[in-house]
């Protein structure tokens, strides 16, 4: 990702919007015991299109905002989301995936990593009481809901970041799918 001031502003606003939407709406829409988590999807999307550096920075910023606005233990969310952003970004850099439906498994995997790691950090830091096994069910529901939401969220983030993207995976895919133009008939087979 080209780190321009415009990109910073766009990502900053995106994360702020994601956090506010999460707190004002998504967290309050309970479906089968769980709820969708927009923040981790936004971080994963930024990482997916922007790479590991952008991903870890977005994760840190989103986590910091989340902790600030929820009054939770400062640093816990940013620690986990930094790792999630970095992981997604590295995956994109190393594997260079270009499948159109990849945002769904990536979103689901990022969510799974987020809920699991955050639960582990919370257990280590805060929670002294017994934890109900229902937490596992809620985690699974959140992962499934995020898998459903991943595609539109990734598409929206891509649209937002497109001016700043050095390399758009969707464009790469399109280019790969385009048939190679053959040269003049007489030269076919002579290309080296």
């Amino acid at each position: 990702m080209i780190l321009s001031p415009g990109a910073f502003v766009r990502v900053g606003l995106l994360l702020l919007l994601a956090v506010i939407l999460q707190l004002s709406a998504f967290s309050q829409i309970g479906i089968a015991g769980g709820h969708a988590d927009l923040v981790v999807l936004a971080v994963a999307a930024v990482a997916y299109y922007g790479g590991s550096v952008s991903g870890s920075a977005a994760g840190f910023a989103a986590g910091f905002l989340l902790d600030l606005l929820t009054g939770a233990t400062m640093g816990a969310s940013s620690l986990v989301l930094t790792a999630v952003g970095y992981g997604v970004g590295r995956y994109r850099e190393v594997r260079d995936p270009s499948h159109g439906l990849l945002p769904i498994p990536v979103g689901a995997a990022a969510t799974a990593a987020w809920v699991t790691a955050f639960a582990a950090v919370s257990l280590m830091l805060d929670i002294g009481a017994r934890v109900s096994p229902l937490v596992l069910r809620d985690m699974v529901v959140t992962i499934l809901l995020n898998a459903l939401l991943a595609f539109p969220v990734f598409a929206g983030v891509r649209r937002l970041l497109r001016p700043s993207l050095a390399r758009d995976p969707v464009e790469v895919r399109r280019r790969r799918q385009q048939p190679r133009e053959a040269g003049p008939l007489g030269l076919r087979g002579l290309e080296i």
Partner: protein
Amino acid sequence: MLGIFVALSIAILTAYFGESGGGVFHTLQRGAQEAFAPVESGASRALKPVRDFFGWAGDTIDAKDQNEALKKEVQQLRSDLAEAQTAVRDSGQLKQIAELHEQDYFPQATRPVTARVIAKSPTVWHSSVKIDKGTGDGVRVDQPVVAAGGLVGKVTTATGGTAEVRLITDGESGVSAQVFPAGVSGVVRPEVGDPDDLLLENVESDRRVTENTLVITSGFTSSRLESLFPRGIPIGRVSKVDFDELETYQRVHVKPFADIRRLDLVEVLTRRGVATEAASLAGGDG
């Protein structure tokens, strides 16, 4: 870069845990929450319809599950209630039957066998019921059957495990009875189709019968027509007396004590028993 952010996060965590409530990060948190409160509030208000929509959808799904669960619960509770009501009713009937034995005119040493009514004649004549005790329990033909309140009939057939009881409301039934303690005798016959009204017939007109007096089995033993029933089983109470100057006999209406329409538990008196002193002294013509 990852290392920097992770280290930063850990540093924030450490500082947050290390500082007091008035520390930098706590203050920052409070400030951010105050600053963003209007934004969050506005967003929350603006997104309320969305939340409501999803809430409605979720509630509908939950309601479906709850509906199923509640249906099962209602069914279980109905079943429990029915069992409880049956138990209460059975208990009440057993209590009334037990009280029957405590009456000073009720025959003694009758060796009662408690039985449950398992079938009733499907007609409106209230003629017979089937009980779940038979010869294996000592039940024999012609033994009297009582229920809560008083006499209900006699055993007409008995098998090993069941018995048929002809009710006193059956058209063929006739029970020698007397008004207690006056001692006026007659035969209790049914008014077929109305189990709440029996007729004490063959009551001579010169022996006046008054309303609300008790009617019990007379238990003739010495005459040719020996009564099947021991003396002293209550049948009912005189509800009305039809007196005609021209008639030789008066017609006495008797309301039976036993609720013939709702028989659940009965007792078969497997022994004729011994008439109590009170019953023997009553009227003196027994």
